């Protein structure tokens, strides 16, 4: 597993770049990975963690097979995306940033996804859903079973 990290270290110019690549493998950053990285770089783990927690782009929670993103950008928010996220939380019994126990779904609210004309927008992996109503959520999630 750590061979991948060795490769990443070899082919990266900065810590941020390494972290981005590591996140790409696992979907998030976790202790064992970063500890290995810190030992390899002879850098304190806290220095790495402190850098990573500074950026919103890095996540420390496990991601599900299906990653749900709910846009909380201004337009989506006004159009009720907050209620969508609450509905998903209720159905899946997870909070924002968490992952279901079976590893299937994870929920993250995000900034503007760039398709405001379809607000409110939710995204599951690469599928975009626009004009989503609260009542449709269950149905959409069912597609991913």
């Amino acid at each position, binding site marked *: 597993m750590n061979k991948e990290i060795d490769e990443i270290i070899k082919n990266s110019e900065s810590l941020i770049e390494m972290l981005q690549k590591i996140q790409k493998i696992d979907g998030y950053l976790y*202790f064992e990975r*970063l500890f290995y990285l810190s030992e390899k770089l002879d850098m*304190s783990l*806290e*220095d790495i*963690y*402190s850098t990573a*927690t*500074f*950026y919103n782009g890095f996540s420390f929670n496990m991601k599900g097979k299906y990653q749900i993103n709910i846009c909380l950008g201004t337009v989506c928010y006004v159009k009720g995306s907050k209620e969508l996220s609450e509905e998903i939380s209720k159905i899946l019994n997870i909070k924002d940033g968490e992952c279901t126990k079976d590893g299937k779904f994870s929920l993250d609210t995000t900034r503007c996804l760039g398709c405001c004309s379809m607000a409110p927008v939710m995204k599951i992996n690469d599928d975009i859903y626009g004009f989503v109503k609260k009542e449709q959520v269950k149905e959409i999630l069912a597609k991913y079973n």
Partner: protein
Amino acid sequence: MVTLKINDKEVSVNDGDTILDAAKKLNIFIPTLCYLKEINKVASCRMCLVEIKGLPKLMTSCSTEAKEGMEVYTETDKIKEARKNNLELLLSNHNKDCDNCLKNNQCKFQELLDKYDIKEKYKNTREKLNIDNSTTYLVRDSNKCILCGRCVDVCSKVQDISVIGRNGRGITTQIGCAFEYPMVDSPCIGCGQCTLVCPTGALTEKDDTKEVENAINNKDLHVIACTAPAVRAALGEEFDMPIGTNAKGKMVTSLRKLGFDKVFDVDFAADLTIMEEVNELIERIKENKNLPMFTSCSPGWIKYVEQYHPELIDNLSTCKSPQQMMGAILKTYYAKKENIDPSKIFVVMIMPCIAKKFERARDGANDIDVVLTTRETARMIKRQNIDFNSLEDSEYDLPLGIGASVVFGSSGGVMEAALRTLTETLTNKPLEKIEFNEVRGLDGIKEATYDVNGREINVAIVSGIKNAKKIIKKIKNKEVNYDFVEFMTCPGGCLNGGGQPYIDFDKYDVEEVKKLRMKCLMEEDKNLPIRKAHENPSIKELYKSFLDHPGSELAEKLLHTKYEKREKYKK
């Protein structure tokens, strides 16, 4: 050189010096909370703001270079207003629990709040944050933290281990360990240097004074205080004595007044450490095994090796530290000699160190009941309304009150004491010159070579983990060829330990303070009637009637220990 004016007074400073440096030179006071000379210059507290003629904005004097012809003002209405605003904002994130805070009346933040007459203006809307009191030596309370970053910079720049740092960003930023690990499971070595620089009560030692007071009040217990060499060189500072005053006599009297049944000197155990350590060194040199040998007196250093360089554990001397040896002797030899049930003996160690609180519970030993820092000891004395300064001097109790190794309190001290005994043991001749000046001083890395009985002995003295890291690298790369290396966790040795009195950075330069404390110990050494561990009559008696000889079976059992590899982050 550049010349500038501050508050209409002219001053010349070196190129590159800051406005704050220039103001210091003129004795103009500018408040600071985050600035630390040569360590922290992040300009985050915004206290040191000054007005510079021609510039529209207020500038932070700690980070702004002095320039030729500058006209600087440090106390205009605009500045006062800005400082007040900033203090109000800092206070809004603070839990204002001064009455219950160990730092009460010694807190720089509180001092400024008083000075600028700041009352609560904004309600604290921050959620209550976790208090990390997972360790036996340190408490970290983020509810008091003003995010100045001094602790972070000391951890990274002075000790070079970066165990704590800023996690998160913006309003959610908190000081913490990686992945929010509790301190007890982190690679924190317990040096406590962070507690020395925190301008609030966010980082303090774990206070054990109540436990000691209870023991003293328990009439069944025979309560003993033992003071480490470095404590006497700094305790007086807590009672406004000039820095560098040797408060030994008053300290002993005050401890008796507090109700301790006996007051002993850890210098005695330092001598014992030297006897065992020199014996061990001679053996290792003879067998050419596990060299260089590393000293094992500094518990932060030991934890550092165990967590960061476990492959070097065999190089550590197996000798317990003076603290642990003292405990072992008190509960065996002393108990027998005085005919006291060891379970009724309550041993309190008074140390300049917070890692000693961690060391106390090493290898399951119960020889020491509580470790107090110099600061906690001062706290107890103040609580009893003892007028420390007007106390008569008194002497330690016998037989464990005589010691030759007061130099232990300073970087190079263990080495010097060891060299005195080593040389005389190997040559069987009295030393012509007892001082080993090469090993003295405040440099972080010192090296020397001595010809002892025809064999060259290469030694090094290292203080501060940043320096230790450098030397370990050299040792691993075989760039150096030492026989014996003294390692101290804190820069300058125990005299600058994490449990020592706070230094007022507004008034004193840390290096100056270290020098004065060191001078105090060296003066005492100069005037001691016995300056060699092996000539201490109490030590001779101890070996004659109890331990037999250094390295004997009983000595091995009581005075030596084992080390273990420790994970940096414990799951």
